[in-house]
């Protein structure tokens, strides 16, 4: 086994430890809620004997570590309990609502990376000239604006004042019917050969994903710019420049890669922010995703659903970060050496 494999296996091990810890936190969260969980689940009108039976069946009378064991054994089998709002199993609700959110987060998370890198490189190339000023000035304003404020502004501007883009119509216009394959609407429409439907679904995605993407895109652009500038002052660049290598070649071959690596390594955290912000943005755009489902669960004190969502997002986040780590290790030869000691 190569050093790279060992490093990746170690990361995988840590990810499992973190997952375990996450499940303990969520379990504790479920148990600190004031009130009797059995009573909360069944409602105030149900007679005490039935509540007691329910308590016994759900192991609420057992000591906490045993309760955790029963809960986690269920979770591993995909049983997150029953939602007290939709009266269905939380897992089933997830399979219905998760694809819409994933599609949104993918669009908000991945394509903007290229814009971020482009803007960052532009800013560094035109350092302290007008393109740099414009990018920096707009990034200050854009970063200062919370995602839900973007969503509200977009709704007002493009939904009401200049209604050129679909805003609160869900994922696709009426009249199209796309057979679900992957659950990602644009992709499914393309698989089915309906290009008009794919375009329509894309337009529906545009505003909510833009609201989610703007902040982190500009943040990444700023980071890329500052790393480009920092690396440009390093000795190895001075040396290559003195040897007469053209500026563009230096930028492309020697400067870009080391400057992009730190930006890539924070992207895992950005995914977390996107998921968090999706909570409000989905509500504002009436997007039928997991966040809107969770928001209703939170407001309705539907504890099984809330914990399920937090657990699910934690798992997605841990996996994304694992992936980002592996990409960084592959991109960066320095990481491979220092981490595999």
């Amino acid at each position: 086994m190569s050093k790279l494999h060992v490093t990746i296996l170690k990361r995988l091990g840590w990810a499992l430890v973190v997952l375990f810890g996450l499940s303990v936190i969520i379990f504790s969260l479920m148990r600190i809620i004031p009130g009797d969980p059995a009573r909360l689940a069944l409602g105030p009108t149900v007679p005490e004997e039935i509540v007691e039976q329910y308590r016994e069946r759900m192991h609420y009378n057992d000591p906490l570590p045993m309760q955790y064991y029963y809960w986690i054994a269920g979770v591993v089998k995909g049983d997150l309990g029953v939602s007290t709002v939709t009266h269905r199993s939380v897992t089933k609700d997830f399979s219905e609502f998760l694809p819409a959110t994933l599609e949104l987060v993918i669009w908000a998370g991945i394509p903007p990376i290229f814009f971020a890198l482009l803007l960052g490189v532009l800013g560094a190339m035109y350092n302290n000239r007008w393109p740099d000023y414009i990018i920096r000035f707009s990034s200050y304003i854009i970063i200062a604006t919370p995602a839900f404020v973007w969503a509200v502004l977009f709704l007002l501007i493009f939904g009401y004042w200049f209604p050129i883009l679909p805003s609160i119509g869900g994922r696709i216009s009426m009249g199209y019917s796309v057979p679900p394959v992957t659950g990602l609407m644009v992709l499914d429409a393309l698989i089915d050969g309906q290009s008009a439907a794919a375009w329509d679904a894309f337009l529906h995605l545009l505003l909510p994903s833009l609201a989610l993407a703007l902040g982190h895109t500009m943040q990444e652009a700023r980071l890329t710019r500052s790393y480009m500038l920092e690396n440009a002052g390093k000795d190895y660049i001075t040396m290559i420049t003195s040897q007469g290598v053209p500026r563009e070649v230096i930028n492309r071959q020697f400067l870009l890669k080391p400057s992009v690596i730190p930006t890539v390594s924070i992207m895992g955290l950005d995914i977390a922010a996107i998921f968090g912000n999706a909570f409000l943005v989905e509500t504002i755009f009436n997007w039928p995703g997991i966040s809107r489902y969770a928001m209703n669960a939170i407001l309705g004190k539907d504890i099984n659903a809330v914990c399920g969502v937090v657990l699910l997002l934690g798992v997605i986040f841990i996996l994304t970060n694992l992936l980002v780590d592996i990409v960084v290790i592959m991109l960066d030869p320095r990481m491979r050496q220092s981490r595999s000691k």
Partner: protein
Amino acid sequence: MEALKRNWLKFSESKISVIGLVIVSAFLLLAIFGKYMVPYPEHIGSYVDFANAGLAPSSKHLCGTDLMGRDIFSRIIGSFRNTLLMGVIVLCISAPVGFVVGVIAGYNKGKLIDTVLMRITDIFLAIPPLVLALAIASVLEPNLTNSMLAITVMWWPWYARLSYGVTSSLRSENYIIYAELVGAKLPHIIFKEILPNCLSAVLTKMTLDMGYVIIMGATLSYAGLGEQAPKPALGSMISSGVKYMPGQWWLTIFPAIAIILIVLGFNLLGDGISNMLGTEEN
């Protein structure tokens, strides 16, 4: 005095950080004295005047009035105190807690306690902050204190990470080893030797974080989990205005602009301070 002057010169080199300082100072002034300066102080609480409900912005009501007839400008200013409190309290709890955890772990680098503490930190970092904050705030009674609590729980790991990084690199410095050799106790090493070296990084991060904490607070308040009506909060003002778009756009636009300005001010100031102290952006 000389050092202060030099720092100010370095800080004011960038016009943009001076703008930040001006915005933040104005915000602090309004947060503290705003109650006595607004045109309609009684409109900050529960006040009803249906005759003047839903008026568009005019010279009498700069930002219009809401559906209860309350002056929106006064309510925006009136919400500043809680916005400020949110930022200050969250950071003043999470920074010291994170610092202590990070220093203890960093000082014992490689030992069991390091692994345990930093893995716990990783677990907290592994949950999307807003998601857990929402979950915590929802389990508890929705109010300002609990929303602060929820954000604090999510915030300390960043400071743990930061001071862990600084401490574990200082760990093998000679002056720390000498201090150990002459028999200095752990509190002495942490507070007299390590803290001064972490301080500028922690303080810079605190100014840079102000804006983010305010955004988080506004987001929770938008979701209905922050300060409750009739007291004003920027987030809840926006969320109650969304239903009346586009007709009464001023209900949402002005609180939104207020949030953007405040956060912008803190971000510019934070950047200025971090440039002044020469700390890295990251």
